[in-house]
Every structure is written in C-alpha cells, then in structure tokens.
C-alpha cells in the first residue's frame, strides 16, 4: 500500500479498516544470500539499499528484540554534515543528501525538518576553527555560513551572549541540517525493505557464527541456524559482544550516553543549537519538549542508563546558555550504548573472515549517518569494494596509522 494524503482521507471516511501491518512478520528461512545482524536504522537501511540500489535478493535482517529498539530510538534526532576531515565530510554530506530525499524515496513521513544547526563560538581561536571547518564543508559540497553575534541573536534573542566566561561571539550555521523523527526512520526503512522482499525477523538473537576454513557459512540464532553467503554485522553498542563470536577483538569501548527531554513548551527554539564551550546540543520537538544531550558518562557500560554527575553537568550547560530555561522541568532521561572507537570515527569494512563484514564504531554520531551507512554498507556487501565516500573507515587503520581523528583526542575513546 502506498501512503498518501488521498489515502488518509479515504481511510478516515471508511473507518480506518484498510490499514494493514507496515511489514510482515516472517519465520526465518533455512538460508539467505545476505544476513544483516541488527534491526536498527543502519541494518534496515543496509537491507533496503541492498534490495533497491544493488538489486540483491534473499536478504534477512535479524533483530534480537524489536526493530528500532536500540540507538535509533534513543538519540537526539539531529541530522547534519558539519565535519572537517576529508575522510568524514564527503560521507556525511552524502548522508545529508540522502536525508533530503528520504521521505519520497521510502514513501514514509520521517518528519525531516531542515531547521538548521548553529554551533556557537566563544573565543577567537574557536572562530578560526569554525572558519576552517566551514570552508572544508563548502569544499565538500555542503553548505556553511559564519554568523556574527548579531545574526545569532536575531534567531536566538534569549541567548546569554554576555556570559563573562564564555561570551557568544557568533556561530557556524548549516542551514540544511535539522532533525528527523528517529523511530519513523527505522519504521520507514523497515516498511520499504519489506516491500522489496527483505525478511525482517524480530526476537531472533545471534548467538554465534558458523565459520569453516576462514569462510562464513551462517549464523547460530535463538531461532535456529540460518545459512548465509554473506553476513553483515550492524550492531553498534554491542559490536564487541557479537564480533567476539568470530574471535575478534575490536578497537572499541562501549559507553553510555544520556539524552533528556523537558516538559512541552511553546515554540522557543527555531533550530538546533550547540554550546561551543562544552558539549551540549538542543532542539525542540514538534510536541514542544526540548530534546538535548551532552557528553557520554565516560566509563565502559552496557547498562542503557547513566549516572547523576553527567545529568548535573548537562543541566549546567543548558542554564549557562539559556538562563530562561531555569523554570522548565525535566520530563525524562534515558541512556543508549555507544560504540566508542579509538579515533572517534566509524568502521565499515570486511573482516579477515570471508563473507563476514563489520559496520560499527559510530560513537554518538550514528543517527545522522543512517542513510549513508546503509548505502555504503550495501555497496560493500554487494560489490566487495568500499563506496567512494567511505574509503577511510577501514578496520586496519589503527595498524597502518591512517586514523581519522575528527576531534584530535588520540586513542582515548571517552574523549571523542
């Protein structure tokens, strides 16, 4: 069924009896050409682009719980491509271009809203860094605009620009950036992949790999053995756990990142805004709640919930930026598990086992990458060569020294 305005009106007039489930609930077949482990945004996007762009068939997505129950349902919904490094920026700009056409492509309302992102600057050195970053973005086909304090105040008149310690001197604006409804992205990809014959198998946890003579034969799951010509792991957060079944140790630590939402307020934030002197990012959802977050808690965790010191830290940053939020109440907070890689950059590559591929290490930048991650991973799975925007995301870069360290922090995962 195609979704359309006409369809909504027709169903409204006929008692909404025509809506069916958005995707099937098939039992696993004994074998597939492609098995994607992980029914999150990236896994579902991979299956979709494998079927649509690379004309592959016999594809299954295995999900241990329900689809979209992991990080694609836990992020702060920001979509942007304001990166500096050559290894990153073409990839994220490719992703943003896919976001721009995503809803038409999937025939699904992902509430993509290009409301712009402003990174605030608080020092002369930071202005220099943002000019450099903006130029790098423009060179890679993205858009960037340097705003002075007055231009920032026109959009955000309530900002505390005269803060004695961190005055707001201006900002770097990417007008094409914005937000998307995170759950709808997973559902949209699931529905579109399912329509192209992909089997989405939920409640099916991978418990091991069957490997013979250095070649993958299939996966052991909680619903029995499933044979596969190619297996793509796509389980950021649990990458180390799953790849350990293949005897691999990864350049990854799992960390918990918290996110927060306030009570519903009248429209106050026109776009996404980030604090440049700490780590804080905020936007307002269509329901009115301010959706915001900060840094990871900083210690290894698989708990999907964080601790109070980081809650306090994030609130302090919020009030430093927007003193007028002092009376807004916090509604909810939650945590998600991040694959923090050793250089802050993802990994999309083959492994030393024939037919086993790895996609992970997304740190806390995975949501914006969802379409491109799926696209380039599908490219890698189908053609055995990296997509031209993702050649830097190699697994062996820590051996060869070709790290892509956007933040320049070195091999300390909790600092990226």
């Amino acid at each position, binding site marked *: 069924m195609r979704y359309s305005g006409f369809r909504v009106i027709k169903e409204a007039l006929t008692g909404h009896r025509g809506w069916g489930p958005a995707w099937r609930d098939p039992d696993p077949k004994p074998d597939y050409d492609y098995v994607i482990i992980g029914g999150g945004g990236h896994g579902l996007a991979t299956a979709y682009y494998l079927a649509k762009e690379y004309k592959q068939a016999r594809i299954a997505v295995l999900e241990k719980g329900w689809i979209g129950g992991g990080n694609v349902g836990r992020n702060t919904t920001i979509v942007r491509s304001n990166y500096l490094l050559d290894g990153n920026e073409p990839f994220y700009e490719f992703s943003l271009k896919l976001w721009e056409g995503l809803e038409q492509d999937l025939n699904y309302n992902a509430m993509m809203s290009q409301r712009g992102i402003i990174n605030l600057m608080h020092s002369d050195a930071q202005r220099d860094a943002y000019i450099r970053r903006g130029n790098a973005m423009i060179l890679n086909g993205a858009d960037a605009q340097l705003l002075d304090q007055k231009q920032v105040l026109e959009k955000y008149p309530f900002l505390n620009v005269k803060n004695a310690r961190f005055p707001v001197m201006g900002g770097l604006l990417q007008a094409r950036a914005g937000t998307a409804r995170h759950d709808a992205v997973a559902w949209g990809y699931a529905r579109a992949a399912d329509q192209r014959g992909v089997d989405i198998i939920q409640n099916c946890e991978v418990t091991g790999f069957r490997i013979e003579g250095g070649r993958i034969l299939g996966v052991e799951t909680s619903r029995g053995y499933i044979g596969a010509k190619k297996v793509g792991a796509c389980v950021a957060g649990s990458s*180390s756990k799953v790849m350990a079944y293949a005897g691999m*140790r990864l350049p990854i630590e799992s960390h918990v990142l918290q996110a927060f939402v306030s009570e519903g307020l009248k429209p106050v934030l026109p776009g996404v805004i980030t604090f440049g002197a700490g780590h804080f990012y905020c936007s307002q959802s269509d329901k009115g709640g301010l959706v915001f977050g900060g840094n990871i808690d900083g210690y290894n965790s698989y708990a999907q919930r964080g601790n109070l010191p980081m809650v306090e830290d994030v609130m302090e940053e919020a009030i430093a930026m927007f003193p007028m939020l002092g009376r807004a109440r916090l509604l909810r907070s939650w945590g998600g598990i991040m694959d923090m890689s050793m250089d802050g950059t993802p990994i999309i590559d083959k492994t030393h086992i024939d037919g086993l591929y790895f996609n992970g290490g997304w740190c806390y930048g995975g949501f914006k990458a969802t379409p491109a991650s799926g696209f380039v991973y599908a490219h890698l799975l189908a053609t055995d060569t990296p997509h031209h925007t993702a050649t830097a995301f190699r697994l062996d870069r820590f051996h060869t020294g070709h790290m892509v360290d956007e933040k320049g922090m070195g091999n300390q995962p909790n600092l990226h």
Partner: protein
Amino acid sequence: MIINHPLLGPRDSSEFVYLGDACLINRPDWQADDALEQFIEYGHTRDNPAGLHRELWYHEQGDRSWLVVTRNTVTHEITQVELARDVARAEGRSK
C-alpha cells in the same frame, strides 16, 4: 556510583577520572621482536566485556592515586577496589 577507596573510604565517582581497561598496566616490552604489533594491540584493541570489567580510575580530585576497580558494566555494581600500585606489583612490575 560510589567508589570505595581502599585508603579514603567511599568517594563519589565524579572525583575520579576514568582511563579504561586495567590491561593498560601491562605495557609491552619495547625490546620484544614483535613490539610494534604488541603496542598496536595495547594502544587500540580492548576486550570490552558486558559484565565484570577491571578498569583504571584516577582520583584526581582526591589523593591522586590510581585504582583498579572491578565493576559490572551491565549493572554498574562495584565489587572490588584495589590500589593500582598493589595490582601492578603483584603482577611483577615496578619492583
């Protein structure tokens, strides 16, 4: 989280800085034939278990001691706290 410091008693985790897996105590021998390979592994790959994890915490806002904390990464429960010095010496380092 509360870390029960062996010398100072229970302290809030926000007084500490986290470094990572306690395997970082075992710095490879730079004169070994495969020193390069060992240092790449030492610097970059981790077990990253879901469950008990021995890890290094530095008491920066306190007595500046390094601790080895055994903590469950699924529940955040801390079951053992030792001075990193004692752990390293027990493993034959810094005699």
